[in-house]
């Protein structure tokens, strides 16, 4: 604020000659505070206005209504045999749906939580013990782990193996070895019927 006032002051001579009005004194008292008020009010109004106008530019990059509308996916799981898995695409990401064998469930539940990097009970990761549903994105740097296909390597712990940097996940898709910091994420899902699951 001091700059424009200073500039006005410096060029007062022009104002005087230009408008034919003698300006002999620096604006003081009522006049000065009135000008200050106008400066502050204009500045504050413009700042708030600019900030408000910025919001649409930011928000337009957030997911649009049509993107959010297709954010859930229903999957028929009746064809998956025990010991096999299926990959579906949900919100543009792979989701692994595995029908586990009793041995795999047994192995997942027998693990001592103290041995885990990201301790979680298998009971908390699978609503029904037979079905393990996880987002198939390695928590290290976002590659897709192997282990869905029968021919895939499943890692040292019989779950998933990420070929990018060698993270091993167990039969509950918990990280056991390698650089990944967390277990594979379990998405929100619910069983609409014994053979139909809704993800998201």
């Amino acid at each position, binding site marked *: 604020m001091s700059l424009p006032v200073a500039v006005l002051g410096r060029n007062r001579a022009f104002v005087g000659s230009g*408008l034919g009005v003698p300006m002999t004194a620096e*604006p003081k008292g009522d006049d000065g505070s009135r000008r200050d008020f106008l400066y502050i009010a204009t500045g504050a109004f413009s700042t708030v206005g600019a900030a408000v106008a910025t919001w649409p530019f930011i928000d337009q990059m957030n997911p649009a209504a049509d993107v959010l509308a297709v954010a859930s996916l229903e999957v028929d799981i009746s064809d998956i045999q025990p010991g096999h898995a299926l990959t579906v695409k949900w919100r543009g990401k792979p989701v692994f749906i595995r029908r586990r064998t009793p041995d795999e469930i047994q192995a997942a539940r027998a693990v001592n939580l103290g041995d885990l990097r990201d301790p979680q009970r298998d009971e908390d990761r699978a609503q029904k013990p037979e079905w393990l549903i996880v987002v198939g994105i390695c928590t290290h740097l976002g590659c897709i782990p192997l282990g869905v296909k029968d021919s895939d390597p499943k890692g040292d712990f019989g779950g998933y193996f990420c070929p990018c940097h060698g993270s091993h996940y167990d039969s509950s898709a918990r990280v056991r070895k390698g650089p990944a910091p967390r277990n594979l994420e379990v998405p929100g899902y619910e069983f609409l019927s014994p053979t139909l699951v809704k993800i998201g």
Partner: protein
Amino acid sequence: MAGHDDEHLLHNEIKLLGVLGWVEYRLPIFNWINNAVGTNYPTPKNVNYFWNFGSLAGIALVIQILTGIVLAAHYVPTADGAFASVERIMRDVNYGWLFRYAHANGASLFFAVVYIHLFRNLYYGSYKYPRELLWWLGLIMLILMITTAFMGYVLPWGQMSYWGATVITNLFGAMPIIGDELLLWLWGGFTVGEVLLRGFYSLHYLLAFVIAGLAIVHIWALHQHRSNNPLGIDIKGPQDILPFHPYFTVKDLFGFGIYLIVFALLVFYAPNMLGEPDNYIPADPLQTPAHIVPEWYLLPFYAILRAVPDKLGGVIALALALLVLFAVPWLDTSKVRSARFRPIYKQLFWIFLADVLILGWVGGSPPEGMFITIGQLATVYYFVHFLVLLPIVGKLESPTPLPDSIATAVLEENKRKKARKLPQVGVAPSASHGASSGGGH
């Protein structure tokens, strides 16, 4: 005003210390800005509100580029996807409706501002020596704007988009001998289609930045001989000018505030007022809308195109309507710039403005009955104004006396204003009151 006297107009160079001084020593950007739009750029002290429209045009362009960048990020330039993607922008993308309405109405207001800017030049003779090149740069930008706006209008791929593109590209088919080959080349096929759509999308984006670049050259040329003013006389000394900052930065900002109010009223309360409802119907290559009209800002040119009952002739008339403007600095033979001192030209100016408005009205009406005759008469007058009246009136007219300088004219006007005011107020204002009310002039 010759360049050598300019150094004495202002002495407001910026001296910087510290980090800013370090930068300034290597890249004198702060003084460059200060010399361009700061305390060291001398502006005629008498410029009126019509001198706001240059900066307004710049702001309008910035708004178009900012909203356009967002729209481009959500738009799909394919024949199958374009219309749906625009509807998606309107319905699903967060604030997408705001960006599209701001972009479409922003284009309209951009043209409104530029047309006022152009007619300001015609009234005050700003195109005359030594500002002919400045005028040309403005006209080139206008032609680029028309091109860009037309291409942008095609992008939503509605009925008006599609048939507008068909009609306008067919103009090139009027070219003798090579017309048909030219159309094949332009369309990249046998009709308006996706190839053309993608090309328009690419050019629409590019041309906005070409206009922005030319705007900088335009300002460069402006600053060589400074702004014209309502008196049309040159700056003669420091008493004629005020520094651009703060006097005209504040005035421009005030104008911008008014502009934003109009803009907001359009975008929020009448976003489709200036558009054609038919463009909300997806493009159909098998059916032409009953009434094809361009956006309002192209209607006068459209009327000139239709006034000539010959395919090639219409196209030539349309092109000449724009090209004749380039010759105006030489067609206008008067040495006096401002219409204020030209009693006859002043009247011709208003008649010409009315003529252009009539052309706009005819351009928006169906090409039948009396509209054909009115359109043809108005088209003839358009060219008569420039090619006959302008050269003759400049020679025959005797201008009223010009003031000695901007400063003396301003002082006299102030005296007249005061003389008018005093008897009504009844009390002579004290010195301090005079100072504060003086700011209101």
